[in-house]
């Protein structure tokens, strides 16, 4: 453990160990009975190396945002541990969490909902200074205007309201707020999914520049595979509260081993029409099952083209598969072989 801790403090900024978040489902009324749990995150482990970006992909309802909120300490984890810079920050009370809040910041998905419509932009960006008192009140305006300039906003718009900005500009306001405390880790919860494609690129480039200039570490959550590929060093794929495939970006994208990853990649839009035409699409049937009553065994087995009896019985561990790099992990009993066609089980797209 000491060896691991030492390694942690050197190059791993964030380590999540077997994190679980269940939301109780209660009956309505005065006396509430717990009748079940939404298993939003169920035993997720991941590490992020200092100064890199970990991409977290998965469809809606896979638990990505819940995981992000647990890591940021916005909601308490049911069990498991979160280590930041080698220190356990799981479920710390607010006051003891305060120093870590400076190091861990969030950028939110909705550029409209994440800014208070009644407050001026200068007050919103300067809020972290006011809360943590890192900058005396007299210097705040200048500091905020520096931040605005850094993220590509006109500092003269200091007194405007969020409603007077476009979606992309609003997301820059969110970035400026996250930068104010000079954090080490920024959790980006689908930061560009609400923006137009052209604006997405601007915001992604801004995030990349900031990473380079300040040595930031990102946990980048998205459901857009191409966006994640563009920004990430490594990628984790989540399905129904579990990680089904993890590893460096290239092996995961080029030789996906989990059928779910393969299906997601085959469904992604491609900028190259020839490649898109040549590609075989695996169409998943059915919806993502309810996290209140997830399937037994491998959670993907009811929708998996390769599922066999074992998949419904035994949960596959997240482990390295033969022929993969040591860091490429897959939770599957019957991983997809390189070049294997899933057309027999899935359906071919009609041209």
């Amino acid at each position, binding site marked *: 453990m000491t060896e691991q801790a030492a390694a942690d403090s050197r190059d791993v900024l964030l380590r999540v160990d077997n994190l679980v978040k269940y939301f109780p489902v209660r009956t309505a009324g005065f006396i509430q009975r717990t009748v079940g749990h939404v298993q939003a995150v169920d035993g997720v482990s991941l590490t992020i190396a200092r100064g890199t970006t970990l991409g977290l992909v998965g469809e809606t309802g896979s638990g990505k945002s819940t995981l992000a909120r647990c890591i940021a300490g916005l909601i308490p984890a049911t069990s498991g541990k979160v280590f930041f810079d080698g220190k356990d920050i799981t479920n710390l009370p607010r006051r003891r969490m305060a120093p870590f809040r400076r190091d861990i910041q969030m950028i939110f*998905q909705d550029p409209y909902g994440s800014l208070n419509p009644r407050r001026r932009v200068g007050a919103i960006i300067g809020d972290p200074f006011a809360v943590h008192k890192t900058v005396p009140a007299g210097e705040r305006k200048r500091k905020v205007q520096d931040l605005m300039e850094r993220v590509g906003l006109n500092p003269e718009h200091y007194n405007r309201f969020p409603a007077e900005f476009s979606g992309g500009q609003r997301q820059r306001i969110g970035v400026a707020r996250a930068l104010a405390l000079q954090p080490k880790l920024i959790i980006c919860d689908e930061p560009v999914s609400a923006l137009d494609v052209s604006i997405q690129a601007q915001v992604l480039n801004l995030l990349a520049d900031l990473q380079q200039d300040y040595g930031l570490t990102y946990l980048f959550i998205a459901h857009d595979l191409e966006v994640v590929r563009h920004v990430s060093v490594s990628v984790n794929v989540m399905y129904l509260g579990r990680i089904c495939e993890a590893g460096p970006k290239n092996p995961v994208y080029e030789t996906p081993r989990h059928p779910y990853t393969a299906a997601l990649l085959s469904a992604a839009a491609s900028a190259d029409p020839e490649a898109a035409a040549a590609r075989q699409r695996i169409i998943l049937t059915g919806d993502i099952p309810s996290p209140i009553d997830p399937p037994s065994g491998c959670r993907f087995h009811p929708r998996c083209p390769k599922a066999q009896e074992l998949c419904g019985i035994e949960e596959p561990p997240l482990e390295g598969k033969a022929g993969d790099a040591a860091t490429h992990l897959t939770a599957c009993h019957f991983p997809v072989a390189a070049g294997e066609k899933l057309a027999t089980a899935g359906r071919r797209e009609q041209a």
Partner: protein
Amino acid sequence: MSITELNWQAQTVEDLAGRTIEGRSQWQLTWRRLRRDKVSMASLAVIIAMILLAIFAPAFASLVHHPANTAYPIAGESAAGQPVAPGTNGFWLGTDDTGRDLMVRVFYGARISLFVGIVTTAIATVAGVAIGLIAGYFGGIVDTILARFTDAVLAFPYVVLALALAVVFGPSLTIIIAVISFFSWAGIARIVRGQTLSLKEKEYIEAARSIGAGPFRIMFVDILPNLLAPVLVLATLYIPSAVVFESTLSFLGLGIQPPTASWGNMLAAAQNFYQTAWWFVLFPALALLITTLAFNLLGDGIRDAMDPTTERLLAARRKARRGGAQ
């Protein structure tokens, strides 16, 4: 989507259409709309006039040389001991049953009524906002206790309790203010709690938590500005009911005690004179009516000015009227 957000979108559109694109706050825009509403402006003028009369009541008293509580048995009463009519012997609005200047006493009554109305509304608003915010934001057992307490206060037969308290503690200005405040905060608390419940789920509240803001900072810096609009409307409408409540207690003899002038106790004294001295009944009653009406109309006007949908309705109506005239 709440009214306040709708408001915002409407404002943006208006700003784009307008000549200047500059940061106008919600308050500036509300004021612009309110200024165009003649009824609200007239009400505001009446309220300001009433406040000035109340403030300068002693000055009026010295102007006409009739202190409020001084009786003029010779000049102020007829030979039969009845009040004299308006305009008699320098009494512009006549006198009351003991020969005191009615105008000066009506102005002094405004001091009491407006003071009670504004002070109790201020206390009730502060208490109601604080309790509503705390109940709505913290939720759980805190909410259960506070919300049930609020319901209990709302369900109370307040006139009965007010009478009982006034009897037990003896009538005084302090008791009146305490009683009216105690029965006024609950309505505000309930509205604030409801708004807080919906506002606290907004992503910007989560953003505030993620930068490390504590619950009280979030309540007062992030949530409160978003519910000031409904609270302001509600407070404007609470002032007249507090004024009426004070007059009711004074009328029943459990509020402001003679010889201190209050519209309520003046009306009580005037009961026996409505056939012989109409002015004795009319002027205090008129003052009460005008004041409460002005506050109510202003409150309605502010509510309309803050709700952009009413403006669209008004514009549509204007357009229809113009179209009909052509």
